[in-house]
C-alpha cells in the first residue's frame, strides 16, 4: 500500500464515521479532559500558594515544579505501574489497566504544567492588584480569587498546554492503560499499535485527529495569549 492509498483510506474512514476509530477518539478526550479536571484545582491552588507566600524551601519547590515539566511520561507510567500492580502498595485498588489509572497518570503529567503557568502568572501580576482587592475589603480567599481572575488568560494557557501534553502522551497511557481495545486504547497508543501491525490507514486517520486537536489548541492559545497582553 502506498502512502497515498493509506491516506485516502484514512480520510474515507474518518468521513464514514468508523465506529472503532471514533471510540478511540472519544476515550482519548474523556481521559485527557478528566485528567485536567482532576489536576487543575489542585495545581492552580499550589501555583498560587507558592507564588504568594514566602517559606523555607520555596526555591526548591519552584525548581522541582519546573523540573517536572520535562519529566518523562514513561517514567510516570512506570512508577504508577509499580504502585498499581497486584504486588504494589495500591494493588488492592485494582486500578491497573483501567481508564482511572490513565486519568491519574495524565493528571500527574499535567500538574506541573498547570502549576508552573499559574505560578508565573501570579508572580508576574501587578502587586497593586492584590493591594487594591484587600483595600476594597477582600479577605484572603476573595483576593486570591480576584488575582486568579485577573490572570485567567495565563491560567487558561496553562490548561491548554497541559491538554496538549496529555492528549499526545503515549508512555504512561500504554503502561497503566494496557491499550485494551474499546476500553483503554486512546489515540497515541492506537497509532503505535496500528503502525506496528502495518495498518497505516488507521494510524494516519488517528494522526489527523491528533493534529486537528493540536491545531485547535494552538489557535486557542494564540487567542488567549492576545487577550493576556499586559494592560
Amino acid at each position, binding site marked *: 500500500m502506498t502512502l497515498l492509498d493509506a491516506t485516502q483510506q484514512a480520510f474515507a474512514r474518518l468521513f464514514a464515521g468508523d465506529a472503532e476509530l471514533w471510540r478511540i477518539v472519544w476515550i482519548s478526550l474523556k481521559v485527557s479532559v478528566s485528567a485536567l479536571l482532576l489536576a487543575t484545582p489542585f495545581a492552580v491552588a499550589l501555583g498560587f500558594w507558592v507564588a504568594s507566600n514566602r517559606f523555607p524551601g520555596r526555591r526548591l519547590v519552584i525548581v522541582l515544579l519546573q523540573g517536572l515539566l520535562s519529566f518523562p511520561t514513561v517514567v510516570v507510567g512506570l512508577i504508577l505501574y509499580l504502585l498499581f500492580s497486584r504486588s504494589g502498595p495500591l494493588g488492592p485498588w485494582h486500578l491497573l489497566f483501567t481508564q482511572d489509572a490513565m486519568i491519574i497518570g495524565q493528571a500527574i503529567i499535567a500538574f506541573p504544567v498547570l502549576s508552573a503557568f499559574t505560578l508565573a502568572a501570579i508572580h508576574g501580576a501587578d502587586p*497593586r492588584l492584590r*493591594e*487594591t482587592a*484587600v*483595600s476594597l475589603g477582600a479577605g484572603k480567599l476573595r483576593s486570591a480569587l*480576584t488575582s486568579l*481572575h*485577573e490572570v485567567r488568560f495565563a491560567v487558561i494557557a496553562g490548561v491548554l498546554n497541559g491538554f496538549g501534553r496529555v492528549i499526545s502522551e503515549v508512555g504512561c497511557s500504554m503502561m497503566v492503560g494496557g491499550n485494551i481495545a474499546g476500553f483503554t486504547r486512546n489515540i497515541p497508543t492506537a497509532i503505535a499499535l496500528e503502525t506496528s501491525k502495518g495498518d497505516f490507514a488507521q494510524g494516519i486517520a488517528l494522526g489527523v485527529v491528533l493534529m486537528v486537536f493540536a491545531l485547535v489548541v494552538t489557535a486557542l492559545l494564540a487567542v488567549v495569549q492576545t487577550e493576556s497582553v499586559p*494592560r
Partner: protein
Amino acid sequence: MSALVSIAEAAKSHAGKILLDVGALTLAAGDLIVLTGDNGSGKTTFLKMLAGLEEPDRLRLRFDGLEATQHGYPRELRRLIVYVHQHPYLFNTSIAENIRYGLRLRNLPEEVCARRTAEAIAWAGVGHLLGVEPRKLSGGEKQRVALARVKALEPRVLLVDEPTANLDAPARAQVIDLLRKTATGENCVIVACHDRELVELEGARRWHLVDGKIEA
C-alpha cells in the same frame, strides 16, 4: 473637634534604616490632610501602613473602638479605611463592575449596590466612560474611576497617594474637586502629594514627613 482616628505610633525600618517613626497623631471628622515630603521620605509606606497593606514594626491605631497593631489589623477596619494608589489598578472587567467590586464584598442587597454604583458614577462624572475598557482610560480617568470606586464604599478615612501626579490641568482640577467633596461630615482624607495646588488647598491641614518623622 473629637478625634476620629488616633495614631499612637507607626514605625518601620529596613536593613537598619528607619523608614518611618511616627507618633501621636489624630485625625478629626472632616479633616483634609495634605501629607508632603521628599521622594522616599515614607509617605506611601505611612499611608499603606494606616490601610493595613504594609507590615509595620510597631503600630497602634484606634478608630471607632477598633485597634490595629503590628500583631493584627481588624478586617472591619479595612472596610472603613481605604487606600488609593498613585496609579490606581483597575480590574480587567467593566468600569461599572470595578466600582461595584467592594460593594459586592459587603454583601449589600443588589438594589443598594446598583444605587450606590450609579451615585458614585454620577459623583465622579465618569458616566460617559462606562463603555470604555479600563486599560484604555487616561491617567486622570483612571484616577476618577478609582475615586468613584472608593466613594461607593463610603469609607470613613480615605488615603490617596499622589492623585494628581502626571495629570494635566483639567484632570487635576477634577480630582482635587472630588477630594474636597470627600473630606466632609464624618469622613476625612489624607492626601500624599507634591502638587502645589493641593498643598495650598484652603482649609487643609499639613503634615510634612522628614526622615520618617512627621512635622505636623
